[in-house]
């Protein structure tokens, strides 16, 4: 296991190198010019060229890529073209809101979706199953921003229970912190809950038809231990896989959710950077997201061994 873990960690290096090359190349060929954005509407072409030169954007691809890679290897993600702040500082400022939002969304989704999927499988074909599946279809097909607006209208604007927007860091108190994240977490969780509930249901249906479940029931076990101890654990591998793959969904959804609720997270940082062509920030954030995704997949692979002892590395 230890050797497998080490091998996987080492394998992230070439993966990240490919990602770095891909991101850099994509931005290089993408239309747009940060110098033109900086220079503003009234700038002359000469001024734009001067700014481009001062930013080093007029250098050849290979020189710029080599320079950037050299700094990355030394732990320096570069400096934002627009704010003049280190990219690592900007990411550090934004990581808490995004991480908090993703963790809370994950917790909310798992707590809601897994029981929903289990109940739907248990009551297959009955009204409970249909109701849950209707909810799942709605969750899947309703755009994130629509869910966000509806929740904000009802719970923030009409009932005034929760704030419309913003983020309070956890060091300013747990409840103020949680209050700002409840609506965004439910907004972002909609699609995730739907996905996990459907997979849980499908996986549970498969497991519930197995001989050992019939045996468990035959020996007099109650439905709750049958469902949640025997069946769910054996249905967990596909669920864990989907939870892992769904992190990409969360990252994509966070961009929209953070915009709707004005949360100063990495999603908004990415969008702002893309619109302005702030290359060092885009590259830094994409690298970080890729790294997180690789790590999540590694964690998922390791979790398989917990739920299914037959899996060995």
């Amino acid at each position: 296991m230890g050797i497998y873990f080490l091998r996987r960690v080492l394998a992230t290096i070439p993966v990240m190198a490919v990602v770095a090359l891909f991101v850099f190349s994509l931005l290089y060929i993408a239309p747009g010019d940060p110098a033109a954005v900086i220079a503003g509407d009234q700038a002359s072409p000469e001024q734009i060229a001067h700014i481009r030169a001062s930013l080093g954007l007029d250098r050849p691809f290979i020189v710029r890529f080599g320079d950037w890679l050299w700094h990355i290897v030394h732990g320096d993600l570069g400096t934002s073209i627009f704010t003049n702040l280190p990219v690592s500082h900007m990411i550090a400022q934004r990581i808490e809101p995004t991480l908090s939002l993703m963790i809370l969304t994950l917790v909310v989704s798992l707590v809601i979706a897994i029981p929903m999927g289990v109940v739907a499988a248990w009551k297959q074909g009955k009204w409970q199953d249909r109701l849950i599946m209707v909810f799942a279809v709605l969750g899947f097909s309703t755009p994130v921003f629509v869910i966000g607006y509806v929740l904000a209208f009802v719970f923030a604007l009409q009932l005034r229970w929760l704030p419309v927007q913003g983020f309070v860091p956890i060091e300013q108190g747990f409840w103020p912190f949680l209050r700002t994240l409840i609506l965004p977490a439910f907004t972002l969780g909609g699609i995730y809950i739907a996905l996990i509930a459907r997979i849980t249901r499908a996986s549970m249906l498969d497991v519930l038809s197995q001989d050992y479940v019939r045996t468990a029931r035959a020996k007099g076990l109650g439905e709750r231990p049958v469902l949640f101890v025997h069946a769910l654990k054996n249905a967990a591998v596909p669920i864990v896989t989907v939870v892992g793959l769904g992190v990409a969904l969360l990252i994509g959804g966070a961009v929209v959710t953070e915009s709707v609720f004005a949360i100063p997270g990495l999603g908004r940082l990415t969008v702002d950077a893309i619109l302005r062509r702030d290359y060092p920030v885009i590259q830094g954030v994409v690298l970080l997201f890729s790294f997180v995704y690789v790590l999540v997949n590694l964690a998922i692979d390791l979790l398989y061994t917990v739920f299914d002892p037959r899996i060995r590395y």
Partner: protein
Amino acid sequence: MRRRDFLATSLAAATSLAAPAIARGAEARVLRFVPQANLPNLDPVWGTQYVVRNASLLVFDTLFGIDASLTPHPQMCEGSETSDDGLVWRFRLRPGLKFHDGTQVLARDAVASLGRWMARDTMGQLIRARLDAMTASDDRAFEIRLKAPFPKLLFALAKGNPNLPAIMPERIAQTDPFKQISDIIGSGPMTFQKDEWVPGSRAVFARFDGYAPRNEPGNWMAGGKRIHFERIEWQIIPDPATAAAALQSGEVDWWETPLPDLVPLLRQSEDVRVDIADPLGNVGILRMNHLYPPFNDVRLRRALQMVANQPDYMRAIVGNDDALWKTMPSFITPGTPLYTEAGGEALSGKRDFAGAKKLLVEAGYGGEKVVMLVATDLIITKGQGDVSADVMAKAGFNVDYVATDWGTVGARRAKKDPPSQGGWNIFHTWLAGVDCINPAPNIAIHTTGPKAWFGWPDNPAIEAMIGDWYAAPDLASEKQQIEKINRASMEFVTFIPTGFFYGYQAWRREVGGIVKAPFPVFWDVKKA
């Protein structure tokens, strides 16, 4: 009841009663403001966005400042003297001016700051071209010696559009004008709290106790800039619906640019006030590339001018709220002293599609593609692009509608390549009305060919007229020159103004003192 219990109970009751008042007091000392856009930096010379200018006006001060009548007034200066030949300008700083780092503002700081500004700003470059010397005579006095008169010098030093002639310490002003400053030290009424800055989310300004406001009442960039808040917190809310909800729920106090679509909703709220933000509004622009066919032929530019219908453009931008727009057969901002409609018949009256088609035939237009760049991420550019595409198709142009984002338009419009090789024929944008009050800040009206703004119109006769305007000694002769410029620019079709439109601002009922201006004026704003 025991004495101790009684005291404890009384204290608790008193505390609970006092708490809301304390909270209200704290609330009244902080203004929460939603700016038009993210604040990407705070360099008033390097940063050209309006949002940078707006924040800079809090942190930095200027030597002169324009008021609501567009007249320059001394701000950091006590006053100025001019020699009879107009070649020597002497300035003296007010006593007691301090930077946020506690050091005194000196004449050499002003000289260095103006030097950096002149390298970047359009009007600054005109001054630099005439500059003989700029020197500090003592700690508070400095002079500008010119080789040729420049009567608009005070207007240039007072101007409110980017790049801002803001004063900063000499050591900071010595930064390359094409590189961003790293220390945000000004002498304005608020200090920038860099440690609380989260770009894209929040920027905080704290009151500068060392600021010495002028005795006159505040009037735009002129007069006493008295701040009634300890902190002004800018909260960047990118989603307009969220900003509207935050204003309604009282989470923010003032929203600089509500979408016209959301204004009816805001007006329904008893707690929210809505009004026009900037009396100088904005001017829509259809810009053609004069370097390449078809618009290197004035007949085809005129054909497009004949079918461009300003009401259509304006409704595409602001919707059905007719209070938000005006037609303007002019290159000058309506309602300002130099406004003229001389030669504007080309843009007013019935649109002439038959005449346009005739011109297309006369000019030998063979159906070449007209590459039109449309930034679809901005409603102002998207709306204009849609209208242009429609009327051009009806007139017989073969339009290649390139839907993209503003970042791409910003880069591609700077390319002088042929349209078929990555260049362009048309793009749309807009200028703030304050940038169109005369030819000095209005870069779009200049026709200096390769040195002109994107589109590169070349017409030495119009440039000579603009030169005459710069030299005009009084308002009457300025008006004469502007009429000539307007008529000639309409005939040459330097660009097509697509109309004049306002924007709204909205604020909470408890906030008072908000005025209409081209930028948010924070001085004299109070909160109950």
